[in-house]
């Protein structure tokens, strides 16, 4: 197929709400299988940009393709070919593990046979087979996280969007989640992730930092640290984000 095309490609993507420009001419590419960290201060425009990439909102101007589909004219196709997981668990506590997976698989239009195949393989990989009949509200937070990730990727999307997936999670579970991300990426899935934990920025292949609607820095963590002559992404973030003028 179009194996050399980037997974995400946007040019001059802009979103205005009245006379407020939330996202102001951002341009970037994300390669296939890449782990791309999308950082920024609160109010910088990350969520607005992410909504456009997921086909949930249209740009005021500019253009982009996600998974090979146009973000304006093919937003429904985008929704079918991506996965999305937010910080608030998007799982149903009163349903069992397998029922949650079945629900998401049917939302993504999978047939029963491919669901059975995918779910048994993934549950086994994550050592969750024994838990498949447990109610989600009763399982520990670490398992809920794995399950939320499974629900977002059960249909083998080309790209998965993770919106602060590790907020508030204990330090051990948080690290296990990142190993899951690495596994998905090494299997070829593109991972687009936001986080406020700057140690997690170090685990990304490349990182962008949004400030007041613009992307003010974009590179590999090592290159950014070298450019700003500091030893951690935390310091890079502070230097780049300190120029923020938005009220937040």
């Amino acid at each position: 197929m179009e194996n050399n095309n980037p997974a995400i490609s946007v040019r001059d993507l802009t979103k205005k709400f009245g006379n407020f420009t939330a996202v102001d001419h951002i341009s970037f590419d994300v390669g296939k299988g890449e782990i791309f960290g999308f950082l920024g201060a609160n109010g910088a425009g990350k969520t607005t940009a992410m909504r456009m990439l997921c086909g949930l909102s249209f740009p005021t101007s500019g253009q982009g393709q996600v998974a090979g589909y146009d973000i304006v004219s093919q937003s429904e196709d985008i929704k079918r070919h991506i996965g999305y997981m937010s910080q608030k668990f998007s799982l149903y506590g009163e349903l069992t593990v397998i029922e949650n997976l079945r629900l998401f698989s049917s939302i993504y239009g999978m047939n029963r046979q491919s669901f059975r195949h995918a779910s048994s393989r993934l549950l086994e990989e994550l050592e969750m087979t024994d838990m498949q009949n447990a109610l989600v509200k009763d399982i520990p937070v670490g398992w809920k996280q794995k399950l939320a990730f499974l629900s977002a990727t059960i249909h083998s999307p080309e790209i998965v969007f993770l919106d602060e997936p590790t907020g508030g999670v204990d330090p051990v579970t948080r690290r296990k989640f990142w190993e899951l991300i690495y596994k998905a990426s090494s299997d070829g899935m593109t991972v687009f992730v936001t986080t406020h934990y700057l140690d997690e920025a170090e685990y990304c292949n490349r990182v962008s930092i949004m400030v007041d609607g613009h992307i003010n820095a974009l590179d590999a963590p090592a290159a950014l640290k070298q450019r700003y002559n500091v030893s951690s992404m935390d310091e890079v973030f502070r230097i780049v984000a300190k120029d923020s003028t938005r009220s937040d």
Partner: protein
Amino acid sequence: MNKAIEISEVSKSYGYIHALDRVNFTVEQGELFGLIGPDGAGKSSLYRIIATLSAPDSGTATVNGMDVVRDYRKLRKRIGYMPEKFSLYQDMTVAENMAFFSSLFGVSAKENYDLIAPIFSQLEKFPDRMAGALSGGMKQKLALSCALIHRPEVLLLDEPTTGVDAVSRSEFWDMLATLREKGITILVSTSYMDEATRCERIAMINNGRILAVDTPSALINRLDENLYNAVATDMFGLLSRLRSNPDVIDCYTFGATLHVVGNDNFSAGQVEEALKKTGMEDVRIYHATGTIEDLFIKQIRDGK
């Protein structure tokens, strides 16, 4: 003088979930005290008890010597509580929310203005804005102003920095340090381990139990481990190689490096040489300084 907060053998269950299991700690007058732990650790359950909104199943809790169950009416005037979820009236303006909370506590916003001025000054520009239409950071400042309007003796802040970016988080902690200088006792909870060092003392909490209480530096000194940094170009390859080493107790990612916990036989030099011989030419293993996060990981590893 009474302790600002005294928690003694407090337990609380919701159905079969043990939210709090015999919790004990005290907060001194004027202290900036942190409650550090992940979501689901029991932090909010404890806050609701201290804020007199729910009673413990067993054990006692007092604030400035007053019991949270028996003396709840008196206490409510003396504490300021900012819950994790934004709980001001979204369809009232900034000025209306301030007026509402002032009249609730029978004070005028003017008399305690000196206390809230550093926080509220940025909000004064838009008194007629609906609270629901404020940005996240501004909502937080308004909520804090409303919690301070009656000049409480003890300020209870439940996860004020969750979902807040690193720069704004650091500004928020500067603000707390200023309030502390004015003599207000502050109990603040967080799931960000790096914020522990901004507190005078902390209690680490997980699964409803207090794991340890002390100053951040004393806690880090307690971390009695052979801790090393390890780096190489192929970080995840290095991670699995180190984990399969019998002398490695634990190995986990730690930002730009891996942290390696070795047993008494672990020799950084030898392990580094062995890895170099098998193709990881750029590997480096060197001493690491522990953090509260390392201590937390150790406690979870030890099943505490």
